[in-house]
């Protein structure tokens, strides 16, 4: 051995900057994974921690919503709509009933419309609270999540007083709502809103300008305005990208044209914009509810159902004492309303975006087709664009802010 040479490894600036590519790795995430909210499977191709491609596989929660609807009466579909987006069940109730009323060419009383708006906005509030709270949870922040859930409990308490149930409330009927507002409701509602506003202020203080939170959300999960439109993305995601599109403003249904509220929009369409849009929408929802309360108090108690014999259920006292009413009650329960033949599409603004119902009737008491246009599914389709080139860790908060709800996505 003449001499031993030792070559020093080069550790120049260039070397430190050099990307260390690894062999691509395929990672299966889900369908049962704590971060996938319900069940969805991601097939991820990774280069180190960077996402190269993503295939989202949905359907694990498919339970044949449309097939079941085609087997029952028009009324029997309403409880199924509760179980689409279980964070904001009433909004799906409203969408379905409005679509059936469109086929029936039915106008509901003013009081019923205000009650629907009120219940719908309480749902939206609960939905956004879950979304924003859970985002913090995905970023390992447990405390803000609990603040969000506490506020959601307060809005669900209100829902319980109004509808009789907290989550799947089954409150809306074809041509009306189940019952009017209890007289104690407005005072409790205002009191709870005061508490929710305080919780939101605390939440805001903890999270909105928190360095870790901002660093994780800013610039991640971007979906541009053009891509949003090409993929038919609606709701807070589209508004975060700077498009002020909201069905409540564009095609006002119920009494939204009489209500004063604003549509928040973002700038770049990243996760942080989505979060800010949702927070502002919660404040707007509470503003809408307060206007509904004032209006309902001015209207006073009265009928909340239409008097149309096709959908009206007669009052119990008359059913027991009059033959005609008894027969009508029997027909309404066993057969349900017959809806004139035709097709109609009606869209409302749900917490996730445009929730549409396309109904086809053949003139019988059973729907021929009940199609739900699920914003959760359609907003999920461009997820691969949002996370491509990003880090694996950013997939989780991005997916959370999409607020994909398995029940609605898979139906």
């Amino acid at each position, binding site marked *: 051995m003449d001499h031993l040479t030792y070559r020093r490894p080069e550790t120049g600036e260039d070397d430190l900057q050099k990307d260390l590519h690894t062999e691509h790795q395929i990672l299966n995430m889900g369908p049962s994974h704590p971060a996938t909210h319900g069940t969805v499977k991601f097939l991820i191709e990774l280069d180190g921690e960077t996402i190269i491609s993503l295939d989202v596989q*949905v359907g694990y929660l498919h339970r044949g919503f449309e*097939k079941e609807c085609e087997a029952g009466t028009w009324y029997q579909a309403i409880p199924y709509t509760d179980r689409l987006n279980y964070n904001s069940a009433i909004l799906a109730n409203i969408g379905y009933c409005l679509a059936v009323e469109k086929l029936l060419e039915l106008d509901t009383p003013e009081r019923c419309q205000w009650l629907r708006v009120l219940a719908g906005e309480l749902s939206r509030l609960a939905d956004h609270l879950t979304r924003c709270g859970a985002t913090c949870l995905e970023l390992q922040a447990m405390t803000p999540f609990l603040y969000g859930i506490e506020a959601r409990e307060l809005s669900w308490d209100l829902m319980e007083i109004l509808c009789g149930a907290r989550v799947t409330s089954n409150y809306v009927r074809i041509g009306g709502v189940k019952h009017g507002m209890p007289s104690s409701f407005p005072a409790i509602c205002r009191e709870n809103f005061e508490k929710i506003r305080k919780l939101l202020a605390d939440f805001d203080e903890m999270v909105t300008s928190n360095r870790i939170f901002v660093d994780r959300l800013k610039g991640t999960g971007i979906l541009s305005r053009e891509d949003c439109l*090409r993929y038919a993305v609606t709701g807070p995601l589209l508004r975060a990208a700077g498009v002020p599109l909201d069905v409540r403003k564009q095609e006002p249904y119920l009494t939204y044209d009489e209500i004063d509220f604003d549509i928040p929009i973002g700038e770049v369409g990243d996760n942080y914009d989505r979060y800010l849009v949702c927070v502002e929408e919660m404040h707007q929802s509470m503003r809408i509810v307060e206007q509904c309360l004032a209006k309902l108090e001015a209207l006073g108690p009265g009928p909340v159902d239409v008097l149309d014999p096709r959908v009206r259920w007669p009052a119990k006292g008359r059913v027991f004492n009059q033959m005609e009413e008894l027969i009508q009650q029997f027909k309404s329960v066993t057969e349900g309303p017959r809806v004139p033949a035709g*097709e109609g599409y009606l869209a409302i603004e749900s917490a996730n975006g445009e929730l549409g119902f396309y109904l086809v009737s053949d003139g019988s008491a059973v729907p021929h*087709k009940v199609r739900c246009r699920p914003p959760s*599914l359609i907003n999920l389709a461009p997820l691969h664009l949002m996370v491509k080139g990003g880090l694996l860790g950013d997939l989780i908060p991005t997916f959370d802010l999409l607020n994909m709800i398995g029940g609605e996505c898979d139906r």
Partner: protein
Amino acid sequence: MADPLAVLLAARGDAVLESHERLGDATAVVDPVELVAVMRFLRDSDGLDFEMLTDLTGVDYLGREPRFEVVYHLYSVKHNHRLRIVVRLPEDAPEVDSLVEVWPSADWMEREAWDMYGIRFRNHGDLRRLLLYEEFEGHPLRKDYPKERRQPLIGPRN
């Protein structure tokens, strides 16, 4: 703001088989052969600007020929108007051209229509089932698929 259905009838009346505005929903039944051309026209013409394919679904009219319909709901953000386009497809060959090239949102919705109704979309590129699994037999939203039908058990996939 132009009435989108009138504009479509004036420019591409040859491709429209039928049209109506019942319940306020402007609807045009279009010749399946012309579908992609009509959709490109609707997306790109000034005054129409349908940037969004909001919804796509199938409908089964068992006993009628053509048996299947594919229903497209379009929306223009710019003009805030909607249009429904329908194509009718025969029972023995329910096939129509894919719109993935026109609007990528068609990708998943066409997969769902294939999954549920067995309607084939030509040139889709990735026409897998969306909600059900590949081993599923039949297409459940067809009217001749009984609601109670059981599916064979499949083993684990390796």
